[in-house]
């Protein structure tokens, strides 16, 4: 029972002009302390909303109807006061958002935003100490010129630089749980590898658990201990990374694996018709962990 995150039967619907749109149909997912778990699947299947529920953000959105159990470190996130949930964000759990512009403030310099994040954990940290620590973190994510980046506004940085800034900010307070939503999409493969190594070390050194959301199955294979596959708001397969990659059991997982473009240049994959088999019951691989 050392789960840092335990989600059971989570459902989500959005209220729109034409009634409710159901998005999550009862998903269950758990992450042990220090475990690296990947969530992969279809675009629009519910990965980012799941992360936003864990963070306690969607519960505060008027149009969202959230139900089910979400326990973080033994605490019931669903029953928590919004103020207490807010206190967890950026300290005990942090998130790398899929879209850097949605979490970086366009009107403040990176240095100022970095200090704000550090002050959530250590309110008295001096300006020089903040700067030194931020510089160190930016170096760790392969930012070649940290001084320039700390003085810059987000629009003055490239897509991948903003993404690395967010990664550095998410790691600086050593959270217990890191929610990483497509953290490497704007990074070249060398920087991506470096960043993954950094996340890996963090997990080892500080026992941080990671929920890793990614469409890049090659990266998932290298990074994750365990994988959940999601399709249209349902988990369709779960298991140790090796098991899922070597013996994908669900039709959707198999279609996904077959469609990964290869650097050997065998041509674009065929796109299978959406099949009823994609809606078949979940496949669970023997509980290895």
């Amino acid at each position: 029972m050392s789960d840092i995150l335990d989600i059971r039967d989570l459902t989500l619907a959005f209220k729109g002009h034409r009634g409710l749109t159901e998005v999550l149909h009862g998903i269950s997912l758990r992450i042990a302390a220090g475990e690296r778990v990947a969530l992969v699947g279809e675009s629009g299947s519910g990965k980012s909303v799941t992360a936003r529920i864990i963070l306690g953000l969607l519960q505060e959105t008027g149009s969202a109807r959230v139900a089910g159990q979400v326990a973080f470190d033994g605490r019931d996130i669903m029953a928590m006061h919004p103020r207490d949930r807010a206190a967890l964000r950026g300290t005990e759990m942090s998130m790398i958002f899929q879209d850097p512009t949605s979490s970086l403030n366009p009107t403040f310099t990176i240095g100022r935003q970095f200090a704000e994040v550090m002050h959530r954990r250590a309110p008295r940290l001096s300006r020089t100490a903040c700067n030194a620590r931020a510089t160190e973190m930016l170096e760790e994510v392969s930012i070649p010129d940290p001084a320039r980046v700390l003085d810059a506004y987000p629009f003055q940085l490239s897509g991948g630089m903003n993404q690395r800034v967010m990664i550095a900010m998410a790691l600086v307070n050593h959270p217990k749980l890191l929610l990483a939503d497509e953290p490497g999409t704007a990074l070249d493969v060398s920087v991506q590898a470096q960043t993954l190594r950094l996340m890996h070390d963090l997990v080892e050194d500080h026992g941080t658990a990671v929920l890793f959301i990614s469409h890049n199955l090659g990266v998932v294979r290298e990074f994750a201990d365990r994988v959940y596959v999601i399709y249209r708001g349902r988990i369709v397969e779960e298991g140790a990374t090796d098991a899922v990659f070597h013996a994908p059991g669900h039709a959707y997982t198999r279609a996904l694996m077959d469609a990964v473009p290869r650097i050997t240049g065998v041509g674009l994959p065929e796109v299978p018709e959406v099949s009823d088999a994609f809606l078949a019951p979940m496949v669970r691989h023997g509980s290895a962990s």
Partner: protein
Amino acid sequence: MSLLRINGVSKTFQTAGGPVHAVRDVSLEVAQGECLAVVGESGSGKTTLANMILGILAPSAGEIVFGGTPLTDRRSPAQRRAIQLVQQNPLSALNPKRSVGGSVRLGLDVYGIGTRAERWARVEAALEEVGLPADMRRRGPAALSGGQRQRVGIARALACEPDLVVLDEPTSALDVLVQARVLRLLNDLRRKKGLTYVFITHDLAVVRNVADRVAVFKSGRLEEIGPTERIFSAPEQPYTRALIGAVPVVDDAELKLRNTLAEAP
């Protein structure tokens, strides 16, 4: 014939901390109907180059020639319609106050594409082509997933019936099945309508399967450019080799190719 010619183009940004040389003396050509991939280091000037092709930024030096005519920062509506951009960052690319269908329709209205009566049908068809249900057009961008927004960006660019599309990480938020569908759509349009693409991406496996030629960037410079086949089998620059040697892969044939490149001198 080359549709796009980039002649000795540089871009320097003046910032509080001094000048930033984002693009340094880059020259390259893109033929009509070609797909040129632009890959390389993060921060190497790819998006800056895209913005110059679109006329969003003016080069500090050099010129950009499109269809034989040098482009200035005052472009005719026809020139603007002819070159479309799919932005790297889908959220900032879409107006939060407009429905996503409205965003797609805007281009049709501005450039007078189709009759007024048929424009909504065109919007819905454009969305369906990228795998989005037609009725999603009424939603705002905040009510879409990352990959759905990215596809709206692609639908919007294609709906303008451009000649050249600059795609800046157009499929980074898509699962591989939806990605394959979108890439096939782009290929079909190239074949049927002779569209030309500048395809910026970090995904080398995608490059291997869609591009005719590849341009490799590092620190604002063009490191190397050549046919896709050659870049992957015999990269000339150590940087290119390192890049391909670091791609995360899923099968053994790929692993073998990657290791050969990583081991080569």
